[in-house]
């Protein structure tokens, strides 16, 4: 084929070989198909999807300059690099077309130019695409599109941003019938579903193209030198800091991943204490640190001028940091996909080996790393499931379309239902959402409320300039926490912490942030002004942020349980981790049993401080927590008692001051999946959880205005907290569907309700084994020692307030004495 010759000669010139999956993708594209390309990072996915549109343009032979391709990327930091590599390919084949990016960082002058002279390909984010859709003048440009490529679709798939992408795709398919849509995805457990979600109504004709996954991933574990001194619990997990420092010293550049922002701050301090002369070569990166500072760290990583960056998931994705030689994971890997992602930050070059070194913080994490290695080798990766029918986002999108040319009800409903997420949207939900953006959502209309209005021509539009501006400003689903900004006197922003943390620090006292000690000067209006401390050797508290503790994934939990089963059966296992942990597991075997996956072990025990019951569902901390509270609720229903529930990823402790006498058949009833939803809602404080979660929904649905810089004072009068809005709706409009959405999302995200139900259903087939133990077993010990610091509060806010006051009172009394 003649048009292929510039491409093949370009490939030849670069010394590249055409891979079969790339050819398969181009050919499918040429036939007008849509689909999903699956290959690990760095193996030519981009070219696989890009050459199709290039060949199409070469073939068309026209001189007409129009925008033909939209390239969606999940991170704006990636957009520039992506646009550059797309441009290289265009230049390489001698096609005089431009690939440019358009994100939140793009200046308005560039945006104006892009509008006047659209590039051949535009690299953008889901948020920026929505923003483009609000502009009626850009619709003709979008009508000329031939293809959309959604890069790193696996990253978007499971979030509301994925739903936003689906809605945008539906819009584009309406504007440009015949549009080809291609997703690019790394390995996940449900590639078929990932493709169906992306293609919506066209899914039946979609095609999945698999690249060969030859990437070698090596998982090693830093083994504690002496097992005796190695803590069973996770708290003193910095013991390995010396060994970690040695490894860092021996590598050029290291990424040290932790699981929480507080852990990042803690490990940074520990490393600095261990090696004070690394002061200038050690950096930190987490999502609460100000963006500019984070970007500076990223630049140093690219330049290779930093020895080690202690970081969280904020560096999971993003630019290719080629100098990274070594990746370490402190604490549980939590999931197989996550470990794979992090390992992939090293050895980014094609053909190179990706390595990750696990740093366990308790004994059982040794098993996790060994199990993760096996799962990775077999590519047993977690699935990511789409969010279904969120009405907050639907409201936002309808306003977007109302702004960008307007919509007719019947057509829009059909378009929305053509997506995977809203395929089963009910008529009631649709009507409600439409009312929400037109007359106010409640049963009766409010006279002064005008947002979207229905014109005489049957088209819904938004014409109010001020509301349009507010909407454009608040598009998107990424919600920053309710946070306090940390600033120097000069106004320079360092980052953010949560309000409750800073309100406990008195002006003049110090705290640690971003690896440095700061003295609080004052805290007012959500701004904490700080300065470097005057004292010589200042000490400070380390902030903690709520949320961010993800549970062990089902896949990894199952892999761990299976490892334990094989250990119990005496199957030989040569992995160094299992060898190391053998003495601990032998103790577990002697004092209790090592539970098999088809068994449910319940240990009971009395200590000086009270009575303990340990359940081991192995279902991740959220589900274990829910099982714990559910158990407490179901036991307490007949005979009320006060229990403290402490979960971790393996099990849950119930602690009380009176003995819990429960027979095996009673346990069956307690762990039954019947009436699950009602009992869960009754057992946890669902209302308060919902209130907490409402922030995101209120923001997405446009109920919270994010103040624009320099916004007029009237804007300030419209600012309120989502918790307050939740209360207002609960009191005065309890049937508001956004409230039920909040409850639903809370059930899934904070209690993993689906997994809970599956766990309890499987439980009916598990054998219940009750053991009375003399001592805390290795499985029980971490739970026992965690209780003091992490127990779940299920009481309501006022009870908690009363209890805290009592405690403060006691503390104050002690002080006096």
């Amino acid at each position: 084929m003649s048009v292929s010759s510039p491409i093949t000669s370009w490939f030849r010139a670069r010394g590249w070989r055409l891979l079969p999956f790339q050819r398969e993708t181009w050919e499918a594209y040429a036939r007008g198909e849509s689909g999903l390309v699956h290959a690990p990072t760095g193996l030519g996915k981009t070219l696989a999807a890009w050459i199709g549109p290039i060949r199409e343009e070469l073939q068309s032979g026209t001189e007409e300059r129009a925008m033909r391709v939209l390239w969606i990327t999940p991170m704006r930091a990636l957009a520039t690099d992506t646009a550059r590599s797309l441009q290289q390919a265009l230049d390489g084949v001698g096609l005089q077309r431009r690939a440019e990016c358009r994100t939140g960082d793009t200046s308005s002058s560039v945006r104006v130019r892009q509008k006047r002279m659209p590039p051949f390909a535009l690299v953008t984010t889901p948020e920026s695409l929505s923003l483009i859709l609000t502009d009626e003048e850009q619709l003709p440009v979008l009508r000329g599109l031939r293809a959309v490529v959604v890069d790193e679709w696996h990253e978007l798939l499971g979030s509301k941003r994925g739903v936003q992408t689906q809605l945008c795709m539906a819009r584009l398919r309406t504007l440009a019938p015949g549009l080809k849509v291609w997703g690019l995805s790394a390995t996940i457990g449900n590639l078929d579903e990932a493709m169906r979600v992306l293609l919506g109504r066209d899914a039946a004709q979609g095609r999945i193209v698999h690249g060969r996954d030859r990437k070698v991933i090596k998982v090693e574990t830093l083994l504690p030198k002496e097992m005796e001194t190695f803590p069973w619990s996770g708290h003193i997990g910095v013991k390995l800091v010396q060994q970690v420092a040695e490894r860092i010293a021996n590598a050029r550049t290291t990424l040290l991943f932790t699981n929480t922002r507080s852990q990042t701050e803690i490990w940074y301090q520990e490393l600095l204490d261990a090696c004070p002369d690394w002061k200038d070569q050690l950096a930190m990166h987490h999502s609460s640190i100000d963006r500019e500072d984070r970007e500076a760290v990223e630049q140093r990583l690219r330049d290779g001028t930093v020895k080690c960056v202690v970081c969280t998931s904020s560096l999971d994705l993003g630019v290719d940091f080629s100098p990274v030689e070594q990746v370490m994971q402190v604490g549980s890997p939590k999931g197989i996909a996550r470990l794979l992602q992090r390992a992939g930050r090293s050895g980014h070059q094609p053909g190179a080996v990706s390595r990750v070194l696990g740093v366990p913080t308790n004994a059982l994490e040794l098993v996790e790393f060994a199990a993760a290695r096996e799962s990775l080798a077999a590519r047993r990766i977690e699935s990511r499931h789409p969010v279904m029918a969120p009405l907050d986002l639907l409201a936002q999108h309808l306003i977007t379309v109302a702004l960008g040319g307007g919509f007719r009800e019947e057509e829009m409903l059909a378009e929305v239902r053509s997506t995977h997420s809203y395929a089963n949207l009910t008529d009631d939900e649709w009507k409600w959402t439409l009312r929400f953006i037109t007359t106010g959502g409640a049963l009766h209309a409010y006279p002064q409320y005008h947002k979207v209005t229905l014109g005489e021509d049957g088209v819904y539009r938004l014409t109010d300039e001020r509301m349009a501006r507010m909407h454009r400003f608040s598009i998107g689903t990424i919600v920053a926490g309710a946070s306090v900004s940390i600033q120097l006197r000069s106004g320079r922003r360092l980052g953010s912490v949560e309000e409750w943390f800073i309100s406990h620090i008195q002006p003049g006292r110090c705290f640690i942030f971003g690896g440095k000690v700061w003295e609080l000067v004052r805290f007012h209006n959500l701004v904490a002004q700080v300065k470097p401390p005057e004292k010589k050797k200042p000490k400070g508290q380390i902030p903690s942020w709520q949320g961010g503790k993800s549970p062990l994934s089902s896949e990894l939990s199952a892999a761990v349980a299976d490892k334990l089963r094989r250990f119990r059966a005496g199957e030989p296992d040569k992995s160094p981790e299992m060898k190391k942990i053998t003495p601990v597991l032998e103790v577990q075997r002697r004092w209790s049993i090592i539970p098999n996956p088809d068994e449910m072990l319940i240990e009971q025990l009395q200590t000086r401080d009270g009575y303990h019951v340990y359940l081991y569902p192995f279902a991740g901390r959220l589900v274990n927590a829910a099982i714990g509270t559910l158990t407490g609720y179901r036991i307490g229903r007949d005979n009320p008692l006060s229990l403290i529930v402490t979960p971790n990823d393996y099990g849950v402790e119930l602690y009380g001051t009176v003995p819990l006498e429960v027979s095996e058949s009673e346990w069956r009833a307690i762990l039954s999946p019947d009436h699950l939803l009602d009992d869960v809602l009754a057992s946890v404080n669902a209302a308060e959880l919902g209130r907490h979660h409402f922030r995101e929904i209120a923001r997405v649905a446009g109920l919270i205005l994010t103040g624009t810089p320099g916004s007029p004072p009237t804007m300030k009068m419209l600012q309120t907290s989502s918790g307050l809005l939740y209360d207002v709706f609960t009191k005065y409009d309890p049937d508001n569907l956004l409230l039920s959405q909040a409850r639903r999302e809370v059930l899934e995200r904070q209690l993993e309700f689906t997994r809970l139900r599956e766990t309890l259903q499987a439980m009916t087939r598990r054998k219940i084994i009750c053991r009375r133990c003399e001592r805390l077993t290795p499985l029980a010990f971490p739970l026992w020692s965690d209780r003091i610091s992490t127990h779940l509060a299920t009481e309501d806010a006022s009870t908690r307030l009363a209890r805290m006051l009592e405690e403060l009172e006691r503390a104050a009394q002690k002080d006096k004495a």
Partner: protein
Amino acid sequence: MFLPLSDTSLQLLPELAAFDTSGQTLFVADLHLGKAAAFRDAGLPLPDGSDAETLHALSALIRDLKARRLVILGDVFHARISHREALHALLRDWLGSHRDLKLAIVPGNHDRKIRWDEWFPEADILTPGTAVGNCLLHHQPPETTPKTGIALCGHLHPGISLSRRGVRGVTAPCFRLQENVLTLPAFGSFTGLSVLARVAGDRFFVSVRKQVVEVPVPH
């Protein structure tokens, strides 16, 4: 509880108001009436009901305490709103059922464009710093602490956040006493909280289980 200062008969009420027993005077701050309507004006669909609840709560207090006088320490209204009929009717009814009540208002920053004769034709509109008994009335906390008596103010919507290690914290409205300046919590049912920094010497009082108690400060 009574305010722990000498020569005052000021009581802090769990309903987030203060009451002077000697003059049968009820003090409240920050009602923010019409807030939901102001939000709707701007395209945020919030339901009604908070104004009625605020006024209802106020009536209940006046009735239970047999208050003869009511002082509102500013921010009676949230903002000027476009459709005022509903709120007008609500307030007319409310005033009608409290004909014997003497009403005084210290205007707040949110009340700037309010025409008081339109809404409260009988009320005394006070300038900041006006004394009633030994209480000096303000909306915003005064810049200097008064030499005698106590200053009462609102404006801040004071809240306090309490937490224990490992347990999600609780944020609650509070009274704050700074020397002899008492800041009242917001009374309106649709108002927010602003969590205050805890400066040494400040005392905080919260409402818990229908009682006002002081928040103990560990030294």
